[in-house]
């Protein structure tokens, strides 16, 4: 067991990384450049404390999105709607935050509460549809993402637009009391690039996620529901309740994703057309790469942000920066394939081992039925 976990945890991503580097090298080569030059430029770009801070700042909202997705994944729920949930939450939180005047801590608390509630509410729609009408959450969350996009466009133009900005559609800028402080030095070392203090939130969420899943009754119910719905039902776990709670919890955490840029990032402090809108998809990728493991997803988030930071250097050596997306995408696809292959290999090995132990001379069928026949 340990060997196979090791294989799945490290060998598969390593293989995937090799494949991804191979694919992107080919892409660099097609573009008429030398892959070695490209990767050298990329490596030199990330070799500084400035880059390290930038990477961490970037990785934090990614990681929160990944946790949001992973909670759903743990019971086989695909929350593709994280995008819609966090963007709607960020927009409404930004509008509300700019509209009121409150003392510092209270102001931030209000923004956080609004974001969480909006995210949870938007996720409650697919949750209810799935729990009570059996609607596949993949379809409903995709549809709701587009509804959210258009709803935001309407609200932003008609209701929450900053009237002083005539060219750009954006909300009013949040006052100082709604902004998180930024760290400009750490352990006496001054940073070239300020560290956004949203990092503690991500760390707390990661720990909370781990404790919830592995040390609580609810987490146990959740994992049982995901791994064996029949067993869960037999054990008296209400599947409807689990769907509702899990999806809404996922949405609540999704609500926090947009707060990274909104209240911690000095380039924003407002919602506008420049606001990032695809962190949810990134989170999905990271949850897949990190296999829903709190540390795995953190590593994946760092890798993702590092790739993005590193590819900025390609512009200096005249190589298309899109190599970065190709690197990320092929890494993701190669990794999910590698995980699946490893899973099959270990499954078959376990089946053979079990057959040997039982003393049968013929191995049982390769795939054991997931559910007992009715």
């Amino acid at each position: 067991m340990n060997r196979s976990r090791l294989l799945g945890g490290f060998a598969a991503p390593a293989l995937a990384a090799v494949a991804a580097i191979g694919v992107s090298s080919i892409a660099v080569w097609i573009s008429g450049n030398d892959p070695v030059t490209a990767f050298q430029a990329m490596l030199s770009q990330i070799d500084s404390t400035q880059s390290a801070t930038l990477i961490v700042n970037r990785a934090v909202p990614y990681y929160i999105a990944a946790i949001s997705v992973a909670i759903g994944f743990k019971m086989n729920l695909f929350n593709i709607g994280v995008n819609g949930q966090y963007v709607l939450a960020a927009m409404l939180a930004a509008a509300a935050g700019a509209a009121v005047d409150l003392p510092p801590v209270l102001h931030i608390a209000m923004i956080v509460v609004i974001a969480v509630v909006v995210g949870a509410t938007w996720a409650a729609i697919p949750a209810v549809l799935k729990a009570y009408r059996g609607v596949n959450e993949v379809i409903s969350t995709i549809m709701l993402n587009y509804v959210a996009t258009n709803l935001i466009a309407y609200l932003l133009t008609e209701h929450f637009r900053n009237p002083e900005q005539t060219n750009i559609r954006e909300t009013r800028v949040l006052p100082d009391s709604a902004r998180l402080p930024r760290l400009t030095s750490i352990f006496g070392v001054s940073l070239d690039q300020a560290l956004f203090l949203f990092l503690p939130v991500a760390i707390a969420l990661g720990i909370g996620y781990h404790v919830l899943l592995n040390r609580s009754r609810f987490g146990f119910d959740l994992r049982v529901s995901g791994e064996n719905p029949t067993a869960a039902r037999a054990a008296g776990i209400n599947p409807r309740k689990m769907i509702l709670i899990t999806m809404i919890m996922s949405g609540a955490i999704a609500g926090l994703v947009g707060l990274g840029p909104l209240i911690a990032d000095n380039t924003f402090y407002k919602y506008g057309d420049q606001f990032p809108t695809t962190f949810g998809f990134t989170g999905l990728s990271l949850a897949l790469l990190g296999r829903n493991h709190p540390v795995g997803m953190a590593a994946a988030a760092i890798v993702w942000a590092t790739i993005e930071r590193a590819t900025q250097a390609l512009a200096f050596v005249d190589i298309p920066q899109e190599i970065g997306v190709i690197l990320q995408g092929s890494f993701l696809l190669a990794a999910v394939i590698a995980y699946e292959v490893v899973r099959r290999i270990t499954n078959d090995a376990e089946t053979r081992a079990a057959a040997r132990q039982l003393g049968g001379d013929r191995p049982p069928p390769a795939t054991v039925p997931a559910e007992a026949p009715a």
Partner: protein
Amino acid sequence: MTATAIAHDEVAPSGERRAMRLPGSLSLWMLAAGIVAVALARIITHNDDITSASTFGVALRTAAPIALAGLGGLYAERSGTINIGLEGMMVMGTAFAGWWAWEFNPWMGLLGGVVGGMLGGLLHAVATATFGVNHIVSGFAINIIAPGVARFMANLLFEGEQGGSLTNSPGMNGEMGTFTMPVLSGGPLFGLDTTWDPLGNIAERGWFAVSDVAGLLKALTTELRFDLVVAVVLFVLSIFVLWRTAFGLRLRAAGERPSAADSLGVRVVAYRYIGMAISGGLAGLAGAVLVIGANRYTQGQTGGRGFLGLATLVVGNWRPAGVAAGAGLFGFFDGITQRLDPGRLVLAAILAAVILLAVFLAYLLVRQPRSIATVVVVAGAAVVMYALFNVENLRDDTLLLIGVALAVVSLLAVATVVAWRTRTLDVLAVAVGLSVLYVAYLSVDEIRSEFVFMAPFIVTLIVVASRGQTLRPPARAGIPWRKGSQEG
């Protein structure tokens, strides 16, 4: 249409007691109801543009990419693979189509779209059919990769060229020709430049229902771009291929009962590959149609149409005619926003929806065990509602407001009673939708485009939420299958 009709008969539970059943095929009745509702809305709002040939023409051009993407999804799911990656394959299609249409000509652009999409489809097939990766995961990954590849291609091919940049290709090399049907719509025949144009003639007359249908037919037969002709042909061909050939039977068997198909010697994995190649090719073709419509590739051109295609698949109950109908509806929404005076057109469309829902509600109520009170209240509400259709601005008059409120409240009350008595939500859902749209029609001067863009997604949500039990996706779509597996 015939395919849908057959499905309806198959699916209809035989033992259920029914107060009334319409003779003939339900989809034909739905089509007829739709035509009558739109014709009524046109006459009530004095807005002939809603069913004019040019409106239908725009609708057709916006519907075609959605429909082709939906058809692509159909081939995938019928062969057992869920294709969330339609959007990504469509993006690949736009990039390749933009490249080949500029490098060679628009026809090669169409081919390029197919090739680009097919690459994405085959990648999905490798991950799902060979390696057994979760279909949603793989499709999602393709959606992540495709825009990167497209941008990479734009960087290599288009940037620095005359009229091209990182975000768009140079214009097409030449134009895509158009087709006009001779005799029916005045197309050229045997050296004659023009022939009769009876459809155009009838469409202009304003005859109830007849002119509306003529407008649709006129749009289908007049100056139709060849790529749209290809799209129409592909739909007809697909109905034939999937339901009337051995190939189609085997393809569908791979999605319904892979193990059974395997035991009969069908190479399930091969058919899933073929299904995905066709699926990706069609999604890419959908992208190519967008490129030809815009004369060039632009970044972000697909704008979620791949996902809309997926939605038509669900709304259309995994059948080609259903996909076409769904895409037609979505295209019509989109088409009217591009016409002159879109606000009033959208209002007319809402009115058509109100009429349609009212007819549907009447149909549902007639099927209920009758009660005099129900009929009286509903009829009363209908009369009041109809009387108020022509009121220009509701907000100014309290008395009218009370009338509307009374009608709506009594309608909802009846619907609630019926819903409670029959333990089903159909009637109540339709009544609520009807009331909301009716009030919106009366109280709003103009509908914002954002809400029009939202409409297809909301329609899809409502359909899956309310008709979820009657929708029938292929039984084993999305479930990985390995050769030798007894499951499925």
